[in-house]
């Protein structure tokens, strides 16, 4: 709502584009971008010529880690879309690096832009003419509806109840502090400092646990990258097609039909899967196929989950053992395909060879037998552990994460202040801020809410 701070957002459409742009607008945008940018020639954004492009890297200023190779454009006020200082960062690495870059920028003090805010600023600052005003109103409306829909979707799974519960506990502390300040003459029993420190710690710990789910739930945001691997002609492409329920990969009886990695998207119970069908792993002479095999091996390394396919209608070969070797240290599911045909080896003998995979399943990619069990196994492979711990509550939205982080920081400052014996009104400021931040997710807490609680919890009225 404020009009003079610096905002940032990913301004290219969500999805797996080759490149994407993170845009900043506002008086600190150049300074903020400068903090996370380095150019090999030691050039600075501050001194570069407006509208020229500068090459360099985005890095995390606290760890030094390089995030991406980028091209940056600086547009100085008033010669920009919003008539404010604008920086556009062209990232190369797709969605994941775009998000990381945006997170870094937010940590440097920018605020995640409201729906339609760049355009709104452009209009308010006189950049866009009057005839377009209606279109801007429509844009704000549609973006707001869209983000509300997305936020609602992401608030499912109990997050909103979780935040509300945390906020209630925080409010109980706040109420104690506020009542202690405002009613010195009433005989009210407010909680002791020790109790307050203890409950703050308690809430802080729960907020931290919740915050951790953001990293853990990266699969929900970025998709679980899943590689289907196996020796040639065990049915990798058939499995992909069966999962997608469409003919995406070319399936033939000839080994080595798939020569490159085919990437597809699939959704299992809300978990997005980036699924890769790979070239069969074997020793080959053909140069194109050789490259395919090399890429298969690399996708195994990069995948969050490997589905290793074996043909149970044929005896295991050296190439199968090669596959088993490759997936030794990965989260993997072993799939015994072609179970509609007679088995060439027993489950026991297979298990004696492959000791690692968490589960092995029998399926028939052509008939569809066992596919549901496979989907279940895929879903559970990466999510089971924390799902049980967190009762399924996950933070997936960056806006939510930022709010929760800010709430936690204020809470930490509040308990620090309490421990240092700082005046109680300082503690109150931090607690209120923490409460407000959680309120950004599930609805604001007003002074009225706090007073209501004071009057219901304490007998006020000298």
């Amino acid at each position, binding site marked *: 709502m404020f009009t003079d701070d610096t905002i940032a957002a990913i301004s290219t459409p969500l999805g797996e584009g080759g490149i994407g742009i993170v845009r900043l607008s506002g008086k600190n945008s150049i300074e903020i971008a400068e903090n996370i940018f380095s150019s090999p020639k030691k050039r600075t954004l501050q001194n570069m010529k407006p509208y020229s492009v500068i090459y360099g890297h985005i890095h995390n200023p606290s760890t030094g880690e390089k995030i991406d190779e980028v091209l940056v454009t600086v547009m100085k006020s008033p010669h920009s879309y919003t008539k404010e200082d604008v920086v556009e960062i062209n990232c190369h690495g797709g969605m994941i690096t775009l998000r990381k870059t945006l997170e870094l920028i937010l940590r440097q003090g920018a605020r995640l832009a409201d729906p339609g805010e760049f355009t*709104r600023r452009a209009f308010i600052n006189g950049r866009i003419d009057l005839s377009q005003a209606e279109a*801007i*109103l429509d844009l704000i409306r549609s973006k707001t509806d869209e983000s509300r829909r997305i936020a609602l979707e992401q608030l499912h799974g109990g997050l909103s109840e979780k935040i509300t519960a945390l906020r209630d506990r925080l409010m109980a502390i706040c109420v104690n502090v506020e009542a202690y300040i405002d009613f*010195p003459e009433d*005989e009210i029993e407010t909680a002791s400092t020790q109790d307050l420190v203890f409950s703050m710690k308690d809430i802080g710990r729960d907020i931290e646990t919740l915050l951790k789910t953001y990293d853990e739930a990266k699969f929900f945001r970025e998709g679980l990258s899943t590689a289907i691997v196996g020796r040639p002609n065990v049915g990798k492409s058939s499995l992909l097609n069966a999962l997608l329920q469409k003919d995406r990969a070319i399936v033939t009886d000839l080994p080595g039909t798939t020569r490159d990695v085919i990437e597809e998207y699939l959704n299992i119970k809300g978990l997005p899967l980036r699924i890769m069908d790979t070239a069969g792993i074997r020793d080959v002479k053909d140069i194109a196929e050789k490259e395919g095999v090399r890429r298969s091996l690399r996708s195994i390394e990069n995948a969050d989950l490997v589905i290793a396919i074996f043909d149970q209608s044929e005896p295991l070969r050296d190439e199968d053992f090669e596959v088993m070797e490759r997936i030794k240290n990965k989260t993997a599911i072993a799939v015994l395909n072609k179970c509609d045909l007679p088995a060439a080896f027993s489950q026991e003998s297979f298990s004696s060879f492959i000791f690692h995979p968490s589960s092995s399943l029998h399926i028939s990619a052509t008939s569809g037998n066992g596919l549901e069990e496979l989907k279940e196994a895929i879903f559970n492979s990466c999510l089971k552990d924390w799902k049980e711990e967190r009762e399924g509550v996950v933070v997936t939205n960056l806006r939510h994460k930022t709010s929760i982080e800010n709430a936690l920081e204020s809470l930490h400052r509040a308990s620090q202040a309490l421990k240092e014996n700082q*005046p109680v009104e300082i503690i109150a400021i931090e607690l209120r801020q923490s409460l407000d931040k959680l309120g950004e997710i599930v609805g604001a807490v007003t002074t*009225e809410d706090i007073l209501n609680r004071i009057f219901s919890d304490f007998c006020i009225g*000298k």
Partner: protein
Amino acid sequence: MLNYTITGKGAKLNKIKRILYSKKMFKDRDYDIVVIGAGHAGCEAALASARMGFSACLFTINLDTIGQMSCNPAIGGLAKGHLVREIDALGGEMAKVTDKAGIQFRMLNMSKGPAVWSLRAQADRVLYRIAMRNVIESQKNLDVKQALIDKIVVEDKKVKGILTSLGIFYGARAVIVTTGTFLKGLIHIGLEHFSAGRAGEFPSIGLSDSLRELGFKMGRLKTGTPPRIDAKTIDFSKTEAQYGDDPPIPFSHSTEKITNPQLPCYITYTNQETHKIILDNLDRSPMYSGKIKGIGARYCPSIEDKVVRFAERERHQVFLEPEGLETKEYYANGIPTSLPYDVQVMFVRTIPGLEETEIMRPAYAIEYDFVFPTQLKHSLETKLIDGLFLAGQINGTSGYEEAAAQGIMAGINASLKLRVQEPLVFGRHEAYTGVLIDDLVTKGTSEPYRMFTSRAEYRLLLRHDNADLRLMDKGYEIGLLDYPVYQRFLKKRGSIQEELERLKKTRMKYDDPNKSETLEQLLKRPEITYKFIDEHSPSDKSLSDEIKRQVQIQVKYEGYINQQMQMAERLKKIEGKKIPQNFDYTSVNGLSREVLSKLQEVKPANLGQASRIPGITPAAISLLMVAIERLKREGDKRAS
């Protein structure tokens, strides 16, 4: 010949017409500003008007109750004390009169930080009244008259004057209504009830109807008082005495010293027996039997409410507060009730120290009309009638201090209006007065509104100690604050500034022999106070304790103060986005019906106020922002 548009219906209209057009009507003189009601709001409003150079008249139902403290004999307390200091910094009277009438002063919250310190004083009810009446009567430009006002006379939505119950007309360019609990006041004692403004005083019936006829939406509130008891019949040895500060700290920036003798209060407690009597007689309480419709304040519950709602509490505090130096009457704070007299006697006599006590005045509850305050602008002028201002309990507040703060602002803004100047409106970061009025006109209220420090977002900026630094420039600029007071203040501010600079520049070595630090850096440390500066590197000027304290506060809290100032600064930008008063909210597509109806009700003056209306979403503000900009540009286009 007078030719006014008269509102009203049937017989009532005819009666008014009869009076207005008949020879019976006597037209007395015209005033610039007329104030109706001489309570805490009315006195400040009238004084501000007269002091700002306008001819003013203060009307009261009873000349002997000017500045009457109708409830507890105390001024100040948390957040309320802050308001009193602000009134003083603007050039108002409440603080000075309290200092003249005060018989016990205590700075509350001394164990907490300076932002939440607040002064509270017990005041002698009679001395207060006399002191205030004396100020009012001595004020140049100000007349005082005893009369019951029946009607506000309006022409073309513009105020013209007032009409008394005797049919006397007074012309006025601005009218300030400060009638407290008098509008259709109805007193309840048990199941008995009767019309009254306060115990023993006439109510005002006609004026309430007059406001309704003008189109104001009105509601009903309730408040209550405890019994007053006779000190001769109190055994103080069974109670615990509570003394004030010694020496007493005055409220006013201009008071040198408190001269009245100081008295203690006494604390005693209710017990299970008290509670049993109350519970056994609940069916005789007008509140529990549903006879009282008005809404009471949750922070000031009756003793029957406390006993019912907090059944687990074994006892409740009772403060016995002296009503004055020359009276035996004591105010039994903590046990307001609307139970019948016989039950009052019974339960009061179960309280230690009060076993033999005689009640001098029974406790009572009073219901009264109020005007929904969202019908006001920030200047406290009504949106409906030009030149009509409302202040005090009529706007749904409770408390002398809340009333007085509104009163002085209404007086100031009525005067500024007559000077054709912009109204004086304080931001939420500038004064509790600003928070108070903004809350009232933006959010309205459903119970008697009392100020709490928790209502202020910028508590650290709005301190008891810096009211002068916050407001005296303004008070002087509008011509309300006396020059000698302002001059003293300028000197004080200069010394503070000078000392702050000295602390920044002066360095010394303290615990690290290799490092010299500025005095400012040292004073920032939690374990160091200004006393350390006095001992190690004192100023060559002689600085008062007040200045030293101010310097210490400003240095120690600099970080937080700056943070809050920045927040306030950002708020100011969005407050600067004005919404035209006749803005058509239906022209903005995409506002939900709920948002739309709230915006239409409050008609916010700017986007900042709009954003504070409960239920207004950030997206709605975004839409409004674009719509207003569009309107502005369309206007500019037409102009060029």
